[in-house]
């Protein structure tokens, strides 16, 4: 709301010494941010709860209160006194009928006019406030809108069928060309002003072109009404049409200002020689609003502010803002002015006092802690632990957008029907909620690689979405060299680096994860994908996936062929559930007191035989003293028959209570070798 200081001063008794900047600062300090100052004109930002300050008078009330309140004896004009619902003389000659409760009040007056340009002072004020002058009649309605916040509309009576005014709902498909020359199709949810034949204005939003005031207009009907805020808001939204009038109506216009607005407008027409009133004022006001009275308790005021504002200041502030204050013991009975649509209860009054007393003056205190504090949510602590773990493991945390492009999401969703889409996305690039952490991470990785940053290891923990709901996951992507040093050739990361991250994370949750070939991972290179499982009370539970990303996905992001990107994702819910089942703190096992014995074994196996199968056979055929099996070499080529590989394993034996003998270890190893031969046809390889 732009307002010239000279206009504000007409309604506020401000110190003569106060300049534009002082006034701007004072009004800003009570809650109206200043967006800009140009010459004499201050542009205030008006919060949604204060439609009364979308007017010069409203701002003047705030300004005068900010400068200490109305001084005794100052004559600050209020609204012209027009008694509520009183007929001012006879009614106007144009009959008015209200057919919907969405119109709370409708006042109408006629005037004979000579349409022409407005005087310069009037046109200048409109221009200063950002409204384009049109002609003296329209300018007068806008002037009143700016001055007291009452939107008005002038119809050319000669263009009204009847002439009469009916405030009714639009008919289905009813058409109206609005003042902006747009043909609008209305629907029955919209309130319109109609004449005897058709809609002539969209109530509270914009008038129609046919009854517009033009150079040839000689008689006008001036409308000053009140429409239900929600209705105006809905209509304005549906039509995509915001106007000075709709902005005020949808926030709430002063119900008592309708006739006052008419009086102002008629006076002004007269004053600038644009016309004169014809007959009386019609005022349809079916259910006048009751007085609003609120009690303000001294104890409540003190308790909420944490400060004791002196009685005199409470009186001064509220009175200057237009409240009628009657002291009652230590408390106050307060009548709320009709324009303060935002004030309904005691807290609203405390806000008024606090605002003008000054929040900055309230002494700062610190609230006492009356009950023991609680630790952070487990999810918060877990996320912190997980981030530190992955950072320590050399992965950089990324933060990527939750919404992505449909095409980017699809390869990572179980099926595209499970994607959660946004009804009103900013653009197609942000139309779908991510089904996985990976597409965003892949984008971030590619962003870096395109900038010649070769070694990228990223992770992100956060929410993913499907039509089943929101879940927490952690994802990671790796690309580039595993280690960079002049002493050794560069070796790129591979699937096992990504798998290692999964194992590290599972370990942090106190579980061991097992990987199996994942056949149906749409984003993975075939044969380079592992589904991750953990043991859940004997059953195998799927917790995530690791794989090498398809070249089509990496090349789509501008990466050259030959760049290997691996990644993976774990479902935190699944891991948390598991942990929930074993929620007791993990206990340590006593350290072994006896030495272990290690034996290395090199065997030739079919190249297609999974290491897990070999490990399984060994464990199934070993005594309980076998505590670890670890592959340390896998080799094929010279010396190994085609179709086979040489696999070397280190077996570790240990007993809790005694030192093992060579003989019993030897016996165990022989039994294992025999079982491997029997089960897989493996042959022992000479050392």
């Amino acid at each position: 709301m732009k307002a010239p200081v000279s206009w504000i001063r007409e309604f506020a008794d401000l110190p003569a010494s106060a300049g534009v900047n002082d006034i701007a600062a004072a009004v800003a300090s009570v809650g109206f941010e200043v967006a800009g100052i140009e010459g004499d004109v201050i542009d205030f930002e008006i919060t949604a709860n204060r439609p009364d300050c979308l007017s010069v008078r409203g701002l003047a009330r705030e300004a005068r209160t900010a400068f200490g309140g109305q001084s005794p004896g100052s004559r600050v004009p209020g609204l012209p006194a027009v008694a509520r619902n009183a007929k001012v003389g006879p009614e106007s000659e144009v009959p008015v009928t209200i057919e919907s409760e969405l119109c709370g009040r409708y006042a109408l007056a006629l005037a004979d006019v000579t349409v022409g340009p407005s005087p310069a002072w009037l046109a200048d004020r409109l221009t200063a406030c950002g409204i384009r002058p049109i002609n003296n009649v329209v300018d007068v309605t806008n002037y009143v809108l700016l001055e007291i916040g009452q939107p008005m509309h002038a119809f050319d009576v000669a263009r009204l069928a009847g002439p009469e005014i009916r405030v009714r709902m639009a008919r289905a498909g009813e058409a109206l060309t609005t003042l902006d020359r747009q043909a609008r199709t209305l629907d029955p949810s919209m309130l319109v002003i109609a004449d005897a034949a058709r809609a002539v204005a969209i109530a509270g939003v914009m008038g129609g072109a046919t009854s517009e005031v033009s150079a040839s207009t000689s008689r006008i009907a001036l409308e000053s009404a009140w429409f239900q805020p929600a209705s105006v808001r809905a209509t304005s939204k549906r039509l995509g049409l915001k106007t000075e009038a709709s902005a005020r109506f949808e926030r709430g216009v002063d119900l008592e200002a309708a006739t006052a607005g008419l009086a102002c407008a008629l006076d002004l027409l007269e004053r600038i020689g644009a016309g004169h009133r014809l007959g009386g004022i019609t005022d349809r006001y079916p259910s006048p609003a009751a007085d609003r009275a609120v009690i303000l308790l001294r104890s409540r005021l003190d308790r909420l502010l944490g400060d004791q504002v002196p009685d005199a200041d409470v009186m001064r502030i509220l009175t200057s803002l237009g409240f009628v204050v009657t002291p009652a013991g230590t408390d106050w009975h307060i009548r709320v002015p009709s324009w303060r649509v935002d004030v309904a209860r005691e807290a609203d009054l405390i806000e008024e006092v606090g605002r003008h007393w000054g929040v900055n003056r309230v002494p700062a205190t610190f609230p006492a802690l009356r009950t023991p504090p609680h630790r952070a949510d487990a999810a918060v602590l877990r996320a912190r632990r997980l981030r530190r773990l992955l950072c320590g493991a050399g992965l950089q945390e990324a933060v990527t957008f939750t919404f992505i492009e449909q095409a980017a999401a699809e390869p990572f969703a179980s099926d595209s029907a499970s994607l959660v889409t946004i009804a009103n996305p900013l653009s197609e690039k942000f139309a779908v909620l991510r089904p996985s952490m990976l597409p965003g991470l892949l984008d971030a990785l590619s962003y870096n690689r395109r900038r010649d940053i070769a070694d990228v290891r990223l992770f992100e923990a956060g929410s993913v979405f499907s039509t089943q709901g929101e879940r927490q996951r952690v994802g990671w992507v790796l690309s580039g060299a595993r280690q960079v040093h002049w002493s050794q050739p560069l070796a790129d990361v591979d699937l096992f680096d990504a798998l290692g991250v999964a194992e590290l994370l599972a370990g942090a949750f106190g579980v061991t994860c097992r990987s199996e070939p994942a056949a149906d991972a749409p984003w993975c290179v075939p044969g380079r994908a592992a589904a991750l499982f953990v043991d859940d009370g004997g059953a195998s539970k799927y917790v995530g996936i690791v794989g090498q990303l398809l070249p089509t996905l990496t090349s789509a992001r501008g990466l050259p062929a030959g760049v290997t990107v691996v990644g993976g994702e774990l479902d935190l819910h699944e891991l948390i559930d598991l942990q929930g089942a074993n929620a007791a703190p993990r206990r340590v096992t006593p350290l072994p007191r006896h030495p272990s014995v290690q034996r290395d074994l090199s065997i030739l196996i079919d190249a297609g035989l999974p290491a897990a199968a070999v490990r399984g056979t060994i464990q199934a055929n070993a005594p309980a003293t076998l505590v670890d099996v670890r592959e340390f070499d896998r080799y094929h080529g010279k010396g190994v028959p085609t179709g086979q590989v040489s696999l070397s394993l280190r077996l570790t034996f240990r007993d809790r209570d005694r030192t093992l003998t060579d003989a019993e270890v030897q016996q165990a190893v022989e039994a294992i070798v025999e079982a491997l031969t029997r089960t897989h046809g493996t042959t022992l390889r000479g050392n």
Partner: protein
Amino acid sequence: MAASSIEDLSRQFRAALDAASSPADLKAVRDDFLSRKQGRVTALVKSIATAPPEERRALGSLANALKQDIEEALDARDAVMLATAGPKDAVDVSLPARRPWVGRRHPLTQVRERVEDIFMAMGYQVIVGPEIEDDWHNFEALNMPASHPARDMQDTLYLSAPVPAPDNGRAATLLRTHTSGMQIRYMEAHDPPVRIIAPGRVYRRDNFDATHTPMFTQVEGLVVDEHISLGDLKGTLNAFAEEFFDAKVTTRFRPSFFPYTEPSAELDVECQGCSGRGCGLCKHTGWIEILGCGMVHPAVFEAVGYDANRYTGFAFGMGIERLALRLYGVDDIRMFYENDLRFLEQIAL
């Protein structure tokens, strides 16, 4: 093949060892005798296979003993040489080191945890909740009924179809526009007193520019008890600002409007770039807005079934990106979402 050739080999080794005067010489001796491919001891061990069967066992143990001797002697000599190494054996320590990889927490995470830590030290519980929300928690219970003009303050992104909530609660229909819904979720489940903060991502239908992204991070705070005042709010937030900026800061509370607090205010801190004189950083106002706050609106208490006559409280919400811009001297919020390693690696570990 005979035991005598084993003795010969032992003698030859001793001579070679005595002659070795540098680590390089020693390495050559080691290769000459022990190399898996052409080492003389290796060859000796292999040749045993061709010896007469009755001699194999004895020769085998002799050869093994020799091999062990040689290994021990080489290792001992290695240790001596290392301890007395001359300058020409020195490693060029100016060559690049083999540095372990290390990652950093994202700056937004670091700022968020900095905020969390400050409030945890003040006895606040940190809670988190869903990013997709229902109308009740995001608007209605926060004193923003349908058609409330304040809903325009936050342009909302809606889901095409409702998504079920994990707790069988109301289905989600929108992306939360603020973390304030967590106030409601917490109060619905707990009786006063309340002292929480709720960090998380929030979403608005804002276009990208240097100060706006459609996704950003907020931290919500809520304190409810029988005697919580605006003064307590001020004291708490002043303390927060000093801890966060790690300096004595001047703050200013400006009245504002939020539907779920009353009175409402915005907290500004004096611009550190210009000490309040005005500069580009603070758009020449001398102040930087860091958060919105206020006393909990009684309608919010009524929505969650708290006795609005008995309890009072304060709430606040701050944007992590905005704080991060200040802390790191970044002038474009989009930097935080590009994940450019050249930027991220400048952030402290």
